[in-house]
């Protein structure tokens, strides 16, 4: 298990380095918990940046916009309001369908939330919701026999900033029976009616993943290879305007 905050470019690159490390047999299966510093928006691999993010506002706010290697939607990573996790492992540890592996990993989030005293459920394909409102979204990619799944758990995200930065198609909101993104998402602090701290969320996530994945986690640091590979990938891919805005 790794904990390390970084900027969006490094964060996405370290997740990819861990995926590549598993693929090459250089990295063990890993749970990583991290923050985005500064706050950032990540978009899905196949999204058109300008259609899902107010790019000008992001620029004004100093919020980097970075394309992930995973599919899925746009996410606002509030430096002081969400914990991002990533799981990198051989696919063989997750027998069954791709959706089964989402369910299994997201069970760690559901368990973490229950340890904090709330009832959440996994809603396929990739959401965890409390009372119908989204509190977590995840996204997975598979490279040969290695998988990376990462996602967010919101505990105190500034939902007004989130709503300003992300552009959600009207049809999508309508399908969820709401008219604005603000009505469709929630945080642990809102649901518990108190200020939830980052460290208690992290502790719950460690326990939740450990139980759901039936593994014993041991805290560690990224290897020299993982860091060097992440720095290389950050430079080559995630800092590239072409990668981030080329679709």
């Amino acid at each position, binding site marked *: 298990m790794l904990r390390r905050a970084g900027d969006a470019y490094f964060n996405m690159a370290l997740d990819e380095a861990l995926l590549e490390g598993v693929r090459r047999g250089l990295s063990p299966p890993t749970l990583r918990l991290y923050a985005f510093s500064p706050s950032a928006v990540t978009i*899905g691999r*196949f*999204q058109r940046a300008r259609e899902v993010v107010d790019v000008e506002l992001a620029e004004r706010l100093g919020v980097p916009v970075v394309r992930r290697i995973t*599919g899925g939607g746009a996410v606002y990573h509030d430096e002081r309001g969400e914990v991002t996790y990533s799981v990198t492992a051989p696919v063989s540890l997750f027998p069954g369908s791709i959706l089964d592996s*989402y369910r299994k990993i997201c069970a760690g989030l559901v368990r973490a939330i229950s340890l904090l005293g709330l009832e959440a459920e996994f809603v396929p394909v990739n959401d965890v919701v409390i009372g119908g409102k989204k509190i977590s979204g995840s996204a997975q990619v598979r490279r*040969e026999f290695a998988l990376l799944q990462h996602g967010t758990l919101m505990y105190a995200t500034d939902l007004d900033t989130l709503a300003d930065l992300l552009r959600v198609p009207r049809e999508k909101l309508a399908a969820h029976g709401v008219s604005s993104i603000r009505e469709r998402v929630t945080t642990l602090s809102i649901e518990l009616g108190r200020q939830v701290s980052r460290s208690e969320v992290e502790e719950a996530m460690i326990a939740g993943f450990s139980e759901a994945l039936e593994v014993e986690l041991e805290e560690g640091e990224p290897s020299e290879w993982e860091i060097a590979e992440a720095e290389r990938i950050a430079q080559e891919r995630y800092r590239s305007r072409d990668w981030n805005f080329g679709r």
Partner: protein
Amino acid sequence: MGSARVKRRCAGGKTVDVEVEAEGGVLRKVLISGDFFAYPEGALEELERALENRGAEKGAILAAIREVGVEFLGVKPEELAEMILEAAERAKSS
């Protein structure tokens, strides 16, 4: 050559946006965007390339999906093929 876009929220729950350039019943360029998932990594980009210069008909599109071996979450191959066809049809009159 004409081009057209078709954007839809699919039954699988994800938004899919297809942009097609077509000429005389042949797909020239297909760009598939949205918040769906495609496996394994790189398969969607490979499918976009495999669709270039294919006939704009359902069987050919579904065959390309099978050949590339792409697995989708959030959109069904049938839905995607229909959207590509619809965009190709609209591209005719653009």
